[in-house]
């Protein structure tokens, strides 16, 4: 049997083929497993491949369940999957098998989707390059000498390498969009509260969201149809109606008001990125959108605010990894306190420790008001800034990242340079609005560039409509790199 090339069709196409009986789900799963076997030694997108379970599910699945039924997917390794290792790419959880499924996993199961494995990431989703994985780096399929971005680097690389048609990632400050941009795929960070966080191992609870990584915007909408909606297990999930996101993909953006964030078009933005984004603006103009310039003065504080709030929440969220109940426990300790200290010293990597220290400090008595509370106040101001901007426009546009994918080791020496990578993506998390990264071109070296679109809270539909219209007109999406199998 010659293996199917998963890149031949998109999700809509595979669903049609399955429904007609032209292909069997087992063939699709096998194609995914074959591709993983062929290229993942180079890419290392996966930490776990659930070959047996996936093939078993493929035999039994009812392909009429949903448009995703019988189609393989990859799951970021910080999303809990029952009895399947969920390590967060950390030594701390190297042996952790959750006794329960995350809500998104339950929803995918209900839809008949088939998970083929768990993807690599920066440890506990802290990082922008997947270099901070305890189990080795993931390589960018477009250039194996470069990072895939992070923290959902494994999910983005798996889609870009054609190993799966789509993957789930999580985004706390850009962790879906930045790797999507670096890998030339589509990534959505949904509105905070749109997708249940139940079962997503928490990094920063007020910022985390699960979202899809796909090859096209339309496919992103399709996956969102399956995973969105209020969940009784997540109090912060919103009881807001979920429209059929694919129904709004009309290709029509005439009259749509697109705001260009001037703060993200100037200094610090790589010329090739700026040029690609400017071309994208022209494309929108040509399609009949109205272009307006927008100022978001508080965005200059975004990075500072983020690096107070996210580590503060993380320091509390990651305190439970103490070696008492599950996960790694030092074999050395002679007392409880020693066990805590050594387990955490040996179980966590450098970047995680750095953020726990930072977060513990900013929450400490005497510093809380000056740092954490102040950060919350600035966050509220940022929200006002965005609210004002959305009075004049429907969609905000910027680069997803200031630069294309960088080389391994280029930014690990200086954490702040690494943090600057998230400059354009962080505000959407702080403000809680949806943001989409769509491929918008390539650098002269052939590296993908991402365009970021943001919309009002719970207005993913407009985001999808704009993104879909753009990608149809621009034609950069759906391209996959050549990888020697």
């Amino acid at each position, binding site marked *: 049997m010659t293996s199917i090339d998963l890149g031949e069709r998109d999700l809509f196409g595979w669903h049609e083929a399955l429904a007609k009986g032209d292909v069997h789900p087992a063939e699709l799963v096998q194609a995914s497993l074959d591709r993983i076997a062929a290229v993942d030694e180079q890419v290392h997108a996966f930490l776990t491949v659930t070959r047996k379970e996936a093939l078993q599910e493929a035999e039994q699945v009812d392909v009429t369940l949903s448009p995703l039924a019988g189609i393989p997917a990859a799951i970021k390794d910080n999303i809990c999957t029952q009895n399947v290792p969920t390590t967060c790419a950390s030594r701390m*959880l190297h042996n952790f098998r959750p006794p329960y499924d995350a809500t998104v996993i339950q929803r995918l199961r209900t839809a008949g989707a088939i998970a083929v494995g768990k993807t690599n990431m920066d440890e506990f989703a802290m990082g922008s390059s997947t270099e901070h994985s305890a189990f080795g780096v993931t390589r960018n399929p477009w250039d194996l000498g470069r990072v895939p971005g992070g923290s959902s680097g494994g999910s983005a690389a798996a889609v870009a390498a054609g190993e799966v048609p789509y993957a789930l990632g999580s985004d706390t400050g850009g962790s879906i969009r930045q790797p999507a941009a670096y890998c030339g795929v589509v990534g959505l960070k949904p509105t905070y509260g749109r997708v249940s966080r139940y079962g997503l191992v928490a990094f920063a609870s007020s910022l985390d969201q699960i979202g899809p990584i796909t090859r096209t915007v339309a496919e992103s909408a399709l996956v969102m149809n399956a995973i969105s909606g209020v969940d009784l297990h997540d109090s*912060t999930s919103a009881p807001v109606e979920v429209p059929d996101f694919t129904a709004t993909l009309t290709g029509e953006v005439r009259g749509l008001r697109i705001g260009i964030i001037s703060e993200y078009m100037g200094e610090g933005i790589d010329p090739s990125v700026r040029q690609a984004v400017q071309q994208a603006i022209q494309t929108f103009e040509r399609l009949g959108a109205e272009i307006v310039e927008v100022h978001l003065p508080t965005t200059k504080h975004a990075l500072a605010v983020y690096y107070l709030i996210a580590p503060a929440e993380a320091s*509390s969220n990651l305190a439970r990894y103490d070696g008492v109940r599950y996960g790694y426990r030092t074999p050395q300790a002679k007392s409880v306190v020693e066990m805590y200290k050594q387990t955490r010293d040996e179980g966590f990597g450098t970047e995680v420790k750095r953020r726990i220290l930072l977060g513990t400090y900013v*929450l400490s008595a005497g510093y809380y008001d000056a740092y954490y509370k102040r950060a919350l106040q600035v966050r509220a101001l940022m929200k006002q800034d965005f609210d004002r901007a959305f009075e004049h426009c429907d969609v905000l546009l910027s680069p997803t990242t200031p630069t294309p994918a960088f080389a391994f080791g280029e930014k690990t020496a200086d954490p702040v340079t690494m943090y600057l990578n998230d400059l354009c993506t962080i505000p959407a998390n702080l403000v809680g609005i949806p943001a989409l990264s769509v491929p918008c071109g390539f650098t002269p070296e052939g590296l993908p560039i991402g365009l970021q679109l943001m919309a009002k809270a719970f207005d993913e539909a407009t985001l999808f409509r704009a993104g879909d219209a753009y990608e149809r007109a621009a034609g950069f999406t759906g391209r996959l790199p050549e990888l020697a199998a």
Partner: protein
Amino acid sequence: MMTETKLFCSCSTAFGAPPNTHVCPVCLGLPGVLPVLNRRAVELALMAALALHCEITPQERFDRKNYFYPDLPKAYQITQWDLPIGKNGYLEITTDEGIKRIGITRIHIEEDAGKLNHGVGGYSLVDYNRVGVPLIEIVSEPDLRSPREAQLYLEKLRSIMVYAGISDARMEEGSLRCDANISLRPLGSSVLGKRAEIKNVNSFRGVVRALEYEQQRQAEALQNGEVLHQETRRWDEDRGMTFSMRSKEEANDYRYFPEPDLVQLVIEDAMIAAAHAALPELPDAKQKRYIETFGLSAYDASVLTASKQTAAYFEAAVAAFPKDPKAVANWVMGDFSRKLNEAGLTADQAPLTPEQLAEIPALIDEGTLSSKMAKELFEKAWAKGASPRRIAQEEGMTQITDLSQLIDLARRVVAGNPKAVADVRAGKQKAMGALVGQMMKETKGRANPTLVHEALQQAIEEQTEG
């Protein structure tokens, strides 16, 4: 609090289950789980805040209290830090000097921690059944002036919580716990001294003992010129002493911050109204009503209302015999309470229903039962768990109240005791007693004493005439 399920998950809160059987991913704090607030817990806490006359915080917010301990699986406790559900309330205690108002600083909702069992086969084991059980912490103002007042305060607090169905408040099951703070100050001074917080007290008696000990210890220290520092001390029940655990400087920095996994809960007026409506009559109001409508003494009213079950029993009994609430009260507080105590029961567990108990004062009132017989009848009814009226009927325990039933007997007694009769005639009233005694013996005490006298007089007169 008496919720069916835990504060943030649907695990049972039942006490006494085998270790780690009432647990789930959420209360075990496994990676990825999220808390969902139990509305019932908020309702009960709201009732508690209203019962203690607190101001209600309209928007409930929860915070994380961060610290490492093996009984705390998330390494933080979800609690309410700067916005407690209730604040600035009070309750009243009755001291020897009269009614005293004790300020309530705050009431907040939080989740319980697990339970450690040390030294089991060289290990410390942890039971997470209790983790996430909802509780309220009630902080009082420094208004209590003696260990006795502290005890009265605790008793009143417990009775309110039990009455309102907020908690079963059992110290032995840990559903009521107390950290007692004490400081001394020179006579006449209004500045409070450095306080010690006493932990590990397991009974009301223990609270009094620990405070008495600590009062003495601090007084001696101050008289010896020592400077006291704020500290936490541990009560050792067996040795009857407190020992320093940690000073204020050694206290944890809990790094409180708002819990991002929960959304703000707005307490609407309707919810407050519902909590008000759900509050039953509390002990203070009950006492007042007993005094005003039943004509009971303040003492009787306080005894009857000390336990919710006793008060309910008393009220049901009064309803069955409304003619004489005082007589019913005497029965409930007297033989009935004694029997309960002997059997270790609460009033609702008594073998006699309130309606059955009420039959006894009713029978006395009807004149068909003497008080001596009443005690005997009560014992029988208690032992059988049956209606006293029916027992009295079946066993012929009712009083003979018909003169005609006694006159024949009186004639025989008079005829059979010529000496005593002669003495009576000679004006020796003592001799009459012997005749009455004879009558009572013959009737097994069932004869109405007034009628016995009457029957004997008549029989003696008949003899004279004859």
